[in-house]
């Protein structure tokens, strides 16, 4: 479904995100690399989600597709009501300036080093400010949201590492986006700094209802955010919700086992599948494992 990006009056509400059989292939001199091999993912409006996985699993690629920085090789990426594959570059740019906020890995990559935080926020929401009918928060309010109240005139070099990351968050939400994509916000931070950053993320979500997707290596971030989706080998592996791990059935019927299970039952292991009264049993020759469907 394609709908043109229109300048409409809206309040800050989260955008839903949907990925259906998303495939992305990098074509290089040394050969093609399949970064995403059919990702199915649904994110409800206002939900917070952590994308977890090892390096090279495709997390950043998925986030780049959600941000409109690349177009999928196959499949569909929906952000709100917009099919990202069918938007033009100008429409995607407008979307990023109004509806989608992106925080790149490394705080300094998100800000202009020579400008203070006020000016960085001004720049980040310039597109939204020129779009009719958009109500934007005051820059001080934004800084307050991320715990940097009164630091508007500070430059990036004046801030501590965790404050830099929160400054990057502030720039990411400056335009009041419905979807906020954050890449590794807690890397290279100590535990206190990590907590502050995550608190800022939670505050943004709580006060604005912004849908937030966080790319991270840290499993604890997923626990903190409430939902963690594991990306492995370009596919959605398992999900963790409220402290519990779930295997996810992909749209093609495949199921990725949790890593610890996969360690015990390596690829090639044969199961028989029984499901009875909401319980799915996988029986290996001589071993018995049960997955509940609730």
């Amino acid at each position: 479904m394609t709908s043109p990006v229109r300048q409409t009056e809206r309040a800050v509400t989260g955008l839903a995100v949907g990925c259906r059989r998303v495939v992305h292939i990098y074509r290089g001199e040394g050969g093609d690399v399949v970064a995403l091999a059919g990702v199915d993912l649904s994110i409800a409006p206002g939900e917070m989600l952590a994308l977890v996985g090892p390096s090279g699993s495709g997390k950043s690629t998925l986030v780049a597709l959600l941000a409109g920085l690349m177009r999928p090789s196959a499949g569909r990426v929906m952000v709100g009501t917009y099919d990202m594959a069918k938007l033009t570059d100008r429409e995607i740019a407008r979307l990023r300036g109004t509806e989608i906020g992106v925080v790149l890995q490394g705080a300094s990559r998100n800000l202009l080093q020579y400008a203070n935080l006020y000016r960085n926020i001004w720049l980040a929401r310039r597109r939204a400010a020129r779009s009719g009918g958009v109500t934007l928060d005051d820059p001080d309010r934004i800084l307050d949201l991320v715990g940097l109240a009164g630091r508007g005139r500070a430059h990036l070099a004046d801030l501590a590492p965790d404050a830099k990351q929160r400054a990057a968050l502030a720039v990411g939400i400056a335009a009041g986006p419905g979807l906020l994509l954050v890449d590794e916000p807690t890397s290279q931070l100590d535990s206190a700094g990590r907590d502050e950053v995550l608190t800022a993320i939670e505050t943004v979500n709580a006060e604005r209802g912004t849908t937030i997707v966080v790319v991270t290596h840290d499993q604890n971030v997923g626990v903190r955010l409430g939902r963690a989706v594991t990306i492995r080998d370009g596919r959605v592996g398992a999900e963790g919700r409220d402290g519990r791990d779930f295997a996810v059935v992909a749209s093609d019927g495949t199921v990725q086992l949790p890593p610890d299970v996969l360690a015990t039952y390596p690829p090639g292991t044969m199961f028989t599948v029984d499901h009875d009264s909401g319980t799915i049993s996988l029986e290996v020759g001589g071993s018995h494992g049960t997955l509940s469907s609730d």
Partner: protein
Amino acid sequence: MIGILWSMIRGRWARAIAVCALASATIAIVAAWPAYLARADASMIATEIAHASTSEVTTSARQVISVNVGIAAPSGPDASGDGGSSDTSSPPPDTTADTDFVPTETTRLTAPWFTTIYATDIDVDTASVAPGASEQATIPLVLFRQNYCAHVVITSGRCPVALREVLLDDDLAMRLHASIGAALNLYGVKQTSLAEQRSKGVGLWQALPAYVAVTVVGTYRVPDRDDAYWGTEAYFSTASGDRGDVLPILTQPGTIDVLPHSERRENVDAELRTSAVTVAALPAIRSQVHPFNTSIPAMLDRVDADRSALRVVVPLVAVPLLLLGCFVLFLAAGQAADVRRPELAVIKLRGLAAWDRWWLAVAESVLAVAIAVPVGLAVGGPLARGVAAITLPSPAPATTTGASAHGELAWVAVLLLAVLGAHLRPLVARVPDLLRHVPDRARQWRSVPLQAAIIVLAVAAVAQLRAQTGPPAGLTSVAPALVVAAVAVVLGRLVPPITTRVGLRAIGSVGRRAGSARRLGTGLGAIVLARRPGAQRLVMVEAVAIGMLGFAFAASVAASQDRATVVALDLGAHRVLSVGSTSPTQLLRAVGAADPSGRYAMAAMAVPTASSFNPPVLAVDSTRLAAVANWPAGSDVAVAAAALAAPGPAPITVTATSVEIDATMDWSTSTLMQVALSAVFLPNDGGLEVDADFGLTSLGRHTYEAQVPSCAAGCRLVGLLVVPDTDFSATVGATIHSLRAAPAVGARGVDVPLGSSAAWRVVASAPGYATPVLSSGPDGLALSVPAADHYQDGVIVAPIAGPYPLPVVATSDATANAIAGVDGSTVQVRVADTTAVLPRVARRGELVDLNDLALAMVRPNTVLPAEVWLAPNAPDSVVDALQAQGLRVSSERTLADQRAYLSRQGPAVGIAFALTAAIALVLLAMACLALLLLVDRSERITELQALRTQGIAASTARRSLIVAHAGLLCAAAIIALLGGALAWLLTADRLPVFVDPKASGLTATNIPIGAMAIGVGAGAAVLAVIAVSGALAIARRLRASGRMSR
């Protein structure tokens, strides 16, 4: 937005200033270019005018009026000697005078460029003078010339103010014994025809009976007879024939009106006003003058040639300089854009509109260029003045601004395009690409079209330059720079693979050979050089800059040598004195007396030719040729002198006071026909030629006698002159049986040996009619003159004295076998030696011995423009010695003066500018190198720190730095030398910086490789300062970080 931009510029002020400085420098050059040309034009105009002869800065209009003022009056000289004034009644109506002449010509020549001078003069006779005065005929001019009192030095008395007051020249006053207040009778005078001279036995000038008494109120002398004020009327010509020294009597116009005269000359002379001669005025000046009566067009032609040459040479380096400025600005802006890629990624990530994205990306550079425009325009003027002070030997204020708004706007547009072009790639790149740090290898391929275009342009420019016949223009004017750039493009592409190979081999040999640490350092440096982004571009920029410096320096040295050679040959000797006009005999005698040793002074004369199609002829005293003359390289002056010193018969000399000729005359027509016979002698003491007039002859054999008192001390027989009556058409025969010279009246004469007809030649001119024939037999010499009525000047039978035909040394292009016009006769010549070029006459002309020429002249007292050539060892007293012999030195030219003149002309000025601009090119390359080193510095430091952490020794790291920096420079220097040499080979002979390349031995293959290497080396040394400084700065930073230790 303004706040963001202000923060951007303030945060990166050094880079902004660098871009602004580069743009300012480029725009300053654009502004300075036309301003410099305007100053150079003014300087060259001033030079040409200062060097011009009088005829090249003056023009005149002249009319000759036939009048009869006072001629008809019957009064003559009073027997008491008190004189008597002629009746000054109004002259009869004159039909030849144009009464509007003066106002018309004055109006025509009073354009802003001329200062006009009105003059009028008549001829008078002062022969009837006070007792005791000289008998020598004096036919001076009586002259009025506007403002004459300001241009003479009054030695006694005052300037005339009233009617019949006159001012006499010092010499004339002395000759006439005229003092202040003395009365002087001035007689009318007229010129007689040859018929009158023959029939009445009178001279060329005949005084008339009427006279007017005038009063001498003062005497004067002229400080500079060659001053342009006196025009080209030859008021001060030296003695010739019957006139004696013509020294004007100066007076007011009213006095001339009352003096008796039959002919009056009116002149309107115009002298160019130097300050008014501007470039804009040149076409109008040219239209005001007639090329037939002035040489101003020749001087203007030299100005045009100077300007054309300059405009060909200036773009040679100026265009590459501007293009390099734009390119360096492009690199600087591109470097800035590369550094800001992540920042641009953020801007794009935030979804800003296209205008905002562009403006944030380019504003820093565009604002720097915008600020640079007024700065550059303001600096352009002082820059032009500074360059003019360096390159113009005689800087002159420009008469026009020379500014071209279109040109300046065009270059500003080019600068902006360069800046915008540098940002284009990042602006169209995607965000993921902007976030990547991996160098874009596709960038290398994108430069291929540009490099291919350079090569194609170079080939096209050279082909066009060699095919065309005119001076370089357009693309061909930058052909040398294109060739150097093309060589840099081709060879620069070899630098990465060669340095990679060297580096890998060096690294590979570590541990296997001695000196591993050195090899490791060398290898690392070579690898860095090979992989440095933009290294190839930097090599090209440096190679072009120092290559052009080498080319310009080589051209400067070669052109200087060329000028020195040409000047030496063109002038002919170390110093040349112009001594007015005199006869060859007089000149040889005077120079021989002034320099008896023959070591430093030589007589020389330019022999007039009958037609400009004939090669020019220079007559010199060949016995002194080797000691004095500048001789072209590649030929032996001794051989030439020996060729000219051919033996010949001795002249016939007599020591007598009377001569007697026994001749049989015969003519076949009426007995009324008259044939005059005379013998012409030239006294050995340098006196005027003597005509032993035997008078009118009679049919049959008779003996005729004439008195020649002037030959008492010895004379040379010039020839026997037979003048037939031109009223009768007949064949005249004259048989000379004998010629006898007697030392005194009544004494027994001595026979003059006549010899055979082979020892004589007939000199006569009647084109289209049978030539006289001379034969010899037992009766003597027999002359037969057919159609004698066509020989109104007579037939001369001259004894051959000296070698005849005259031996000449000729250039290859000279083909004449006779010299015509020296004294109205034709002298046969033969080529005794050839050479490629001769002093003074250059590549087309002949050299003849002056002694031999004097012997061959039948009118030996013919005056010719004379010079005395001096060798470097000539003493200062030589001028006084020459003047003591009666020669008046009117001007002097030296090698230094001539070299200075050539150095002020267009080609020399152009090459001086090219050298200055080439130095600026190197400085610009230095700025480019500094910029790129600055950008690379942090990356290099990071790399070296990492290597040091891995255990690389400090000395190894230092060596890698030196190799990386010096290697690039060495590669550029080698490429520059090869490029410069190829550019010379292909283009040098077509550049208008050489006066006469062939004379100087400059050929396409004669590459001044030494001078070129010096230029390249100097440029490389300048760049090495930056390279070494950059390496040391990195080393210091590493040391400061604690990772490097001594």
